[in-house]
């Protein structure tokens, strides 16, 4: 039961992101007579400082956060898992080098490196994805490395080596499936931190550029009119909160279900 509500919220988020462009939405249509209108019939979430529909922009923002989350999870997990698994499997100097590189990346507090990277590279969704992936791969690498280290001396791996199986095949066929559970959970919680981080970067003006919408930039723009039109800040904030809550609940559920103990800690960016 406890999984239906979060799953429903996430499904809605995905659907808005995937099918938003097919809906008859006008997120960028400026409508000056309706500036800062409160929620009401016809404009369910009201209008912003240019009279644009907040609901339409919310749907567009869902697309931004979904794109970034999907992109960053794919890129950072691919790089991280490959690097971590490869280093641990080969061992020796390669492993030592990776541990040093991971240590250096972990020395930058959470979102700080992403802010600096996005700031230096310039705004835009591509750069946000790159910046967050540069920060994000480390978690997967560390986890994959620890998993391979604990798995590589198992009997079935020794048997595979004895049978002359290639190294790549051993890693992909005999090690990766056993590591899947903790990595899936890392990725799930990762989505929550990425949604917050993307919105955070956009809040600082380092994410998508106007007139494109992001939940973070909607909050930033809304803070100027907070006293007269609090719905401008409330709507995108609640959207972020719901998605992040749902992802965290799903992560907790998966952790119990897959029975992975302490595999990952939630990151607060």
């Amino acid at each position: 039961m406890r999984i239906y509500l979060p799953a429903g919220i996430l499904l809605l988020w995905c659907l808005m992101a995937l099918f938003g462009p097919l809906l008859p939405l006008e997120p960028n249509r400026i409508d000056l007579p309706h500036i800062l209108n409160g929620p009401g019939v016809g404009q369910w979430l009201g209008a912003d400082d240019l009279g644009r529909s907040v609901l339409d922009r919310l749907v567009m923002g869902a697309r931004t956060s979904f794109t970034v989350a999907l992109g960053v999870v794919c890129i950072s997990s691919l790089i991280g898992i490959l690097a971590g698994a490869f280093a641990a499997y080969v061992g020796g100097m390669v492993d030592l080098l990776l541990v040093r590189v991971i240590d250096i990346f972990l020395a930058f507090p959470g979102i700080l490196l992403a802010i600096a990277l996005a700031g230096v590279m310039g705004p835009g969704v591509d750069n946000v994805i790159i910046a967050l992936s540069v920060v994000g791969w480390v978690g997967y690498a560390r986890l994959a490395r620890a998993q391979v280290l604990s798995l590589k001396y198992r009997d079935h791996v020794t048997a595979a080596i004895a049978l002359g199986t290639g190294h790549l095949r051993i890693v992909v066929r005999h090690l990766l499936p056993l590591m899947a559970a903790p990595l899936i959970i890392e990725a799930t919680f990762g989505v929550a931190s990425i949604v917050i981080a993307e919105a955070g970067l956009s809040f600082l003006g380092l994410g998508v550029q106007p007139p494109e919408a992001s939940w973070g930039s909607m909050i930033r723009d809304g803070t100027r009119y907070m006293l007269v039109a609090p719905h401008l800040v409330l709507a995108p904030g609640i959207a972020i909160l719901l998605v992040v809550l749902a992802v965290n609940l799903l992560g907790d559920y998966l952790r119990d279900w897959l029975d992975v103990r302490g595999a990952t800690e939630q990151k607060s960016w």
Partner: protein
Amino acid sequence: MGNLLLTRLISAALVVVGVVCLVFFLIHLVPGDPVEVMLGESARPADREALRTALGLNQPLAAQLMHYFSGLLRLDLGESLHSQRPIIDILAERLPATLELAALSLLLAVALALPLGILAALHKDRGWDVGAMSFSLLGVSIPNFWMGPMLILLFSLWLGWTPVSGRDAAGSFILPTITLGTALAAILARMVRSSLLEVLSEDYIRTARAKGLSMGAVVWQHALPNAWLPVVTLLGLQLGALLGGAVITETVFSWPGIGSLLVESIQKRDYPVVQACVLVISLIYVLVNTLTDLVYAWIDPRIRLGADQ
């Protein structure tokens, strides 16, 4: 303990060298010509050349890196492109505000997390536990760039209890501290709970109960001292999140710290200052984590005594 100290210091030094290299390369990630981006297209060629020389960008990469390192050793971080002042002076002005905010938030987080975590562990699956864990879930899910404006709206604009922003007015630290401290409190409360639950299921706790000790005495004397270790480690690691979160929180509240300096400098394309901010925050983080490791070893006799064997 001596060996451990040495190993940790060497590894921290290696990390610091790596961090400095990475920060150095930041400026080379500026798309196109960094000098043109910083000065704008209308700058005179002579000015561009002057800046290029000042930043050492016309030298080979290795020489630039050496120059950067030698500057750091002399505490010379260069000059701000915007205000022409030495960056080290600007940092010295801004650092106290960030440290103050971080320390207050840490204090708030511990003050909230300890009672919540302990109550949740002692009343597992009952009212307190559900309440504390709901708070925890909510705490990690609310982004601070939303919580900040919401607190300003409620307590500053509607109720008029606290200043909206800045650091000068009395009580101006309250809202930024709550904003920054809540997420950490949420994570810590979870950790205190799970760590205490684990310890409470140990045999020696049952023995202590069996010999007639009250639950309070068992928790304070037997359970908590053993539940500290994971909490201390997490505290050190989460300080990074705290310093990272400070960048956004300071910006929301116009708190004059290093975090807001970083964001202002990005907007002004004052990249040497951006580099310096990232460097200083990361160095503080490395320092704190190294200290945490040593404190951890000192608290835990198994590590303290084991390292010398």
